C-alpha cells in the first residue's frame, strides 16, 4: 500500500511562496499527474514528496505515516530527474545495479534483476556500454529502469519526457502506462504538457501560481473545469473565454459577445438557468474550439462570424473567427474549406460549454449534474 497525502503543505523560499497550502490525497497505485505552467510550484511539490526539499508548513504522509521529517535517503521513493542524473562514469549495468548494490543484495540476485530490467527497458544490447554513449531516448529508459529496479511503492517522475522528440514521446507514453500497471505502483508525474497528463493519469492535479486549482479525472478536468485557468490550460487550442453580456429577450436568454446584440448567442436551458440564477449582467462564456460546427442556419448557440486566419496544424485546421470586436478560435478537420475573409455561420455545442464568473473565474453550476 502506498498512498500519498499532503495536508496543508507549503513551501517558502524567503519571501517567495513556491507552494501554498496543498491538500492532495493520492490513492494507492494511482497514476497522478501534477500539471501546470513553468513556475507554478509543481516541481517543488514533488521535491517535497521526495524529501529533496523540506516542508515549510504542513505534513506529508505515506500510507498514513508521517514522513514530513524523514530524510531523503529513508523515504523509499523512486525519483526520475528531468535531466536523468545518470551516473555518467558508470556503465549501463552499473547504473541499473546501483540501488541494489547499496542495499547489500547478493551478487547473483543483482545480476538476475539487472538482466530482467535491461530486457524490460530494451537496453540489453547496450548493457555493458558506458552510459555516456546512450542516446537521449535510451538514457530516459535507463533513468526509469534504475529507479524501478528497487521496486519503490511510490514513483516520482519530474518532466521525464520533456527532452524527447514528439515521435518518441508517443511510444514512451504507452510504455510508461504499461510499466505502472505491471508494477502496480503509485506514480506521480510532473509535466507542463497537458497531452501527456491527459493520456497517462488517472487523476490530474492542476496547479497555477503555487496553488492547487483542481484535482480530478482527466475527463472532468476537460469537461467540467473548476475555473477559467483550468479551462484555458487544458486543450489545444485552448478554450475560448469570451466576455459576454447576459440579456433576456423574448423570454430567452442571450449571451451578447462584446456586449453587442448583433453578436448574440442564444443559450440553451441549462446555461440559461445558470445565467438567471447568477443574476449577473456580465459573465465569461467558455466554449472549446473543437465544439464548433459550421452550420447553415442560425439556431441555439449559433453565431455569424468572419474568418480572419486559417492555420493548418497537422490533421486539423485552426480557424480564427471575428465578430465585430470579439475573436475566437475553432478547430476543424482538414477537409473544411474556409478562407480568410469569408463569412461563416458557426454553431457552438452548448451542452459542452460553460459560464464562468468574470471576477472569480469560477465555473457556474447549479447542483451536481452541471
Amino acid at each position, binding site marked *: 500500500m502506498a498512498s500519498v497525502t499532503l495536508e496543508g503543505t507549503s513551501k517558502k523560499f524567503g519571501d517567495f511562496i513556491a507552494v501554498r497550502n496543498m491538500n492532495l490525497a493520492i490513492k494507492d497505485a494511482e497514476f497522478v499527474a501534477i500539471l501546470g*505552467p*513553468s*513556475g507554478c510550484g509543481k516541481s517543488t511539490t514533488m521535491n517535497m514528496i521526495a524529501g529533496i526539499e523540506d516542508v515549510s508548513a504542513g505534513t506529508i504522509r505515506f500510507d498514513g505515516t508521517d514522513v514530513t521529517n524523514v530524510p531523503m535517503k529513508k523515504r523509499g521513493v523512486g525519483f526520475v530527474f528531468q535531466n536523468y542524473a545518470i551516473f555518467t562514469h558508470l556503465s549501463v549495468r552499473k547504473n541499473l545495479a546501483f540501488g541494489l548494490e547499496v542495499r547489500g543484495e547478493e551478487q547473483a540476485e543483482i545480476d538476475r534483476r539487472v538482466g530482467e530490467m535491461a530486457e524490460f527497458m530494451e537496453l540489453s544490447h547496450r548493457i555493458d556500454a558506458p552510459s555516456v554513449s546512450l*542516446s*537521449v531516448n535510451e538514457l530516459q529508459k535507463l533513468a526509469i529502469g534504475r529507479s524501478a529496479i528497487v521496486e519503490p511503492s511510490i514513483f516520482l517522475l519530474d518532466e521525464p519526457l*520533456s527532452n524527447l*522528440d*514528439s*515521435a518518441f514521446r*508517443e511510444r514512451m*507514453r*504507452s510504455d510508461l502506462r504499461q510499466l505502472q500497471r505491471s508494477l502496480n505502483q503509485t506514480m506521480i508525474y510532473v509535466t*507542463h*504538457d*497537458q*497531452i501527456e497528463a*491527459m*493520456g497517462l493519469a488517472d487523476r490530474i492535479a492542476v496547479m497555477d501560481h503555487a496553488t492547487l486549482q483542481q484535482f480530478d479525472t*482527466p*475527463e472532468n*478536468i*476537460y*469537461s467540467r473545469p473548476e475555473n477559467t485557468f483550468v479551462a*484555458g*490550460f*487544458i*486543450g*489545444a*487550442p*485552448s478554450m475560448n473565454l469570451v466576455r459576454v453580456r447576459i440579456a433576456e429577450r423574448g423570454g430567452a436568454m442571450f449571451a451578447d459577445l462584446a456586449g453587442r446584440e448583433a453578436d448574440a448567442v442564444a443559450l440553451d436551458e441549462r446555461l440559461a438557468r445558470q445565467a438567471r440564477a447568477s443574476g449577473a449582467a456580465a459573465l465569461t462564456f467558455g466554449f*472549446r474550439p*473543437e465544439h464548433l460546427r459550421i452550420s447553415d442556419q442560425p439556431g441555439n448557440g449559433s453565431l455569424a462570424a468572419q474568418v480572419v*486566419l486559417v*492555420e*493548418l*496544424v*497537422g*490533421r486539423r485546421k*485552426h480557424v480564427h473567427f471575428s465578430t465585430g470586436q470579439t475573436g475566437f478560435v475553432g*478547430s476543424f*478537420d*482538414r*477537409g473544411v474549406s474556409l478562407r480568410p475573409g469569408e463569412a461563416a455561420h458557426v454553431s457552438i455545442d452548448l451542452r459542452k460549454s460553460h459560464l464562468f464568473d468574470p471576477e472569480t473565474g469560477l465555473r457556474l453550476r447549479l447542483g451536481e449534474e452541471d
Partner: protein
Amino acid sequence: MAEIQILGVSKAYGGVPALDNVSLTLNDGSFTSIFGPPGAGKSVLLRLLLGLETVDAGQILIDGVDVTRALPSERNLGMVFQNLALFPQLTAYENIAFPLRRRNVDQTEIDRRIETLAGILNIGHILSKKPAALSGGERQRVAIGRALVRDAGAYLMDEPIAALDARLRDDMRLELKRLQSELGKTFVYVTHDCDEAMAVADQLAILNEGRFEQVGRPEDVYGDPAMLAVAELVGAPRISVLPAFGDNDGMKFALGRLAGAKVKGECLMALRPEAVQLKPGGKGPCSALVTDIERLGAFSIVTAGRDGTQVRAITDGDSPLRLGAEVEITVDPDGMLLFDAATGARHA
C-alpha cells in the same frame, strides 16, 4: 532581403555522413521549416548555413553570392538558438541591444529598433528585468528580439519554442508567422514537432538521415507524401503501416478487407488515424478488437487489432468504446496511402 540556395552540400564527421548531397532553395521572404527526426542533420545544416562549420562539398549562396567559405560575421544571418543563450548579467534591453552595440550603432537608433520590436513581441514591460526574473515565454521572446534586432538578411531558428507549454507555443507560432510576414524576411525554422513545422511554413522540407526526402507546401507533403518515410514522419498520431494486397474486391490485409483498391498487388498500406473509423460491432469485412484507448480530452487515440496487427484511429474524446470491444473498421479513401513494398515510393 535574402534568397538562400543550398547546392549539393555534404558534411561528414569522422567518416560518418551527416548530410549527403543536399540541395534546397529558400526564396526571398519565405518561411521554410526543416523537419526531421533527431540525428537527421537539421542542426548540422543550420551550423553550415551560419558558417560555424565548413562544408565538405557543395555551395551555399546568399542572394547569388557564394558564401561557402565566408565567416559567420560576413553572412548577415540572425540566429535564435535552442538554449536561448541570453546573458544572465544583462537586462532584457541590454541583451537585445548587444549585437547593435558591438557594431557601434547609435543609441537613438538602438532605442528606436528595440521599441518597435518590443511592441511586436509584447516585451515592453519586461525590458528592464534580467533573464532570471523572466518566465520561459518571456525569455524566448527576448531571445527572438535579440536575433531580429540585427536587421539581417535571413533568420535561422533552432527549435525556438520547444520548451514552452502548449498554449504559449500556440501563441508564439502565430506571432512568429505574423512577424515574418510583417518583416518580409526569409525565415529558416528547424523543429522536431511536425504539427508546428506544418503550421508555420510556406515551404516544408523533410530531412531524414542526411537527405531531403521531400520539399513542398505543407498540405502537399502531408496529403501527398512521395515516400513512406515521409508519411511516417509527418503526422501525429503516427500513421499505421500494414502490408496489404489489392485486387478487385478491395485492399486485403491482416484484419480483413477495405473497400477501394487504387493499386493492385502487393504493397504497403498506410492509414492516417483521422481517416480510420471504428464502429461498435464485429460484423463487416474488416474488424478487430480494441487494444488500447488514450483519452486526450478533445479526441481519443484508439488502437484496434488482432494477432499483433494494429491500427490507430482518432475518435471523439468521449467515445463510448471500451477495451476489448469488437469494432468494425472503415477507412476514408483520402487517408489511405499506398506505397511500394520494396522501394517505399508512393503508388497512389
